[in-house]
């Protein structure tokens, strides 16, 4: 346990010891700001019964931030250590492979959550100017953040996996971007195609992340998304673990 926390601290601080962390935060805040401007414009025209988080989700910036930042957050996790050789010093200390994978994933998740905190600020601003207490509904805020966390877990575990595959950070980022974009496109496809009774359509409906996340932004906690994200996250973490272990049987 001690090794786990030590590693989490180290990984998390590494984001702030280099420019990467600040650049990612700045980029995410810029996109969040843009989406917020968009959101305020909509609010000016007519009153809406939609919660602010749903309005935010409807601007599509959510997906842009998710798909663009997660590869950059995760690319350094394993690739940099393998490149600089510190992976060897790490793996020759008495830590288990599982601890390493989990610690890196946790650190990336924590950083990812930090990235989304400004959203809270945006909502507070809306609350301040509209004088509408319903804006800050704890349930809706909670479910939105749960959705953000679930999807984040999926995309970050995907990035971990990509980073464990290679020594090059650029390759890691490209691979995870490719995978995330494919997942995103599948979601688009599931959204666009009409629902049918065929198995293909049924399978595709599992990837209907748009609708499901929309529910979360509205305050509806949909177990389908939770189940999908958690299993996929566990799957990719397991895959990462196997890749890390592979040096033992390769």
């Amino acid at each position, binding site marked *: 346990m001690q090794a786990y926390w030590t590693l989490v601290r180290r990984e998390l601080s590494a984001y702030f010891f280099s420019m990467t962390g600040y650049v990612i935060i700045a980029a995410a805040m810029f996109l969040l700001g843009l989406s917020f401007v968009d959101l305020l414009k909509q609010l000016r025209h007519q009153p809406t019964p939609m919660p602010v988080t749903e309005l935010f989700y409807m601007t599509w910036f959510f997906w842009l931030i998710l798909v663009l930042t997660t590869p950059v957050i995760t690319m350094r996790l394993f690739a940099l250590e393998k490149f600089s050789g510190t992976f060897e*010093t790490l793996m020759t200390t008495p830590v288990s492979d599982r601890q390493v994978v989990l610690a890196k994933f946790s650190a990336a998740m924590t950083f990812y959550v930090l990235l989304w905190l400004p959203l809270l600020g945006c909502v507070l601003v809306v609350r301040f100017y509209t004088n509408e207490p319903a804006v800050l509904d704890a349930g809706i805020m909670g479910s939105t953040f749960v959705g953000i966390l679930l999807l984040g877990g999926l995309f970050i575990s995907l990035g971990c996996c990509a980073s464990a595959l290679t020594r090059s950070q650029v390759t890691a980022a490209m691979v995870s971007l490719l995978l995330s974009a494919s997942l995103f496109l599948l979601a688009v496809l599931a959204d666009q195609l009409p629902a049918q009774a065929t198995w293909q359509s049924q399978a595709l409906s599992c990837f209907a992340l748009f609708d499901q996340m929309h529910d979360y932004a509205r305050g509806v906690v949909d177990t389908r998304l939770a189940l999908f994200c958690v299993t996929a996250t566990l799957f990719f973490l397991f895959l990462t673990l196997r890749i890390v272990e592979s040096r033992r049987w390769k």
Partner: protein
Amino acid sequence: MIEVSNLTKRYAGVTAVSNITFSVARGEIVGLLGPNGAGKSTTMRILAGYLPASSGTVRIDGLDVFRESKEVRRRIGYMPENNPLHHDLRVREYLKFRARLKGLRRKRSRERVDVVMEQCGLAHVSRRIIGQLSKGYRQRVGLADALVHEPELIILDEPTIGLDPNQIRSVRQLIKSLSPVHTVLISTHILPEAEMTCNRMVIMYEGKILAADTPENLQRLMSSNSQVIAEIAAPQAELHACWAQLPEIEQFDISASQGNYFRCALTPRDGLDLRPQVFELARAHGWPLRELTRNHHSLEDIFVQVTRPAEEDEG
């Protein structure tokens, strides 16, 4: 402390280490010596539990490095080749991080970090960022990291590579000071280094062990058939007859030298030292003798001698 038996490591198609067996006793400083690509680093990586062996077993302190990997890793301080470090951390931060990672409690890690920083001469750079340190200091940080959890066995892969002579000297002194409390295994391709620091040397070449002994024994082994060179002013025929009837001489070669001297290269039988006899002979005959030397083989010669035949076979 270390028992390696029939260790083999194959990478895709290449055999990096083939069927080596050696052991290291507690408190020894053993040098793994060999040219680049001899399989030293691979052997060390296996010992440190980073890579698995293709076949054979490695036991450290009686524990199997593969099956009881975690226990073994607790007992080892390992510094890989090129000494990779986190360049964004300060020296103290890094050592503390490593100490905690190796399972030291908070208070203990603080104490140990102070001790190893003192031991490795890092106390005055403890607040510096590792990336801004000179190579010599970074090497010391790597050493301090290997020592921080008081491991019984310290494995250092080329600890003095890329250092200037003064730094090399201080690192060597540090390594020497580790024995007999710690067992040390270092790899190097620099002979004087092994000669100076190690109690025992294992010479590797192309994945095999060619020789393993103390530096003195290796030297003795090699000097056993070392030639004696004598320059004597005497008629060549007489010299010839003289050497031919001496039973201790296995082989001799006479060539003309400057003046009326002849240069005789005498190879002894059974590693005898021929010098007193040659001197006695020259005195008895009244021949002027102007040089009498015995070739002293340095480890460098041994190294070349041991590793060359294989190279020629390959060609």
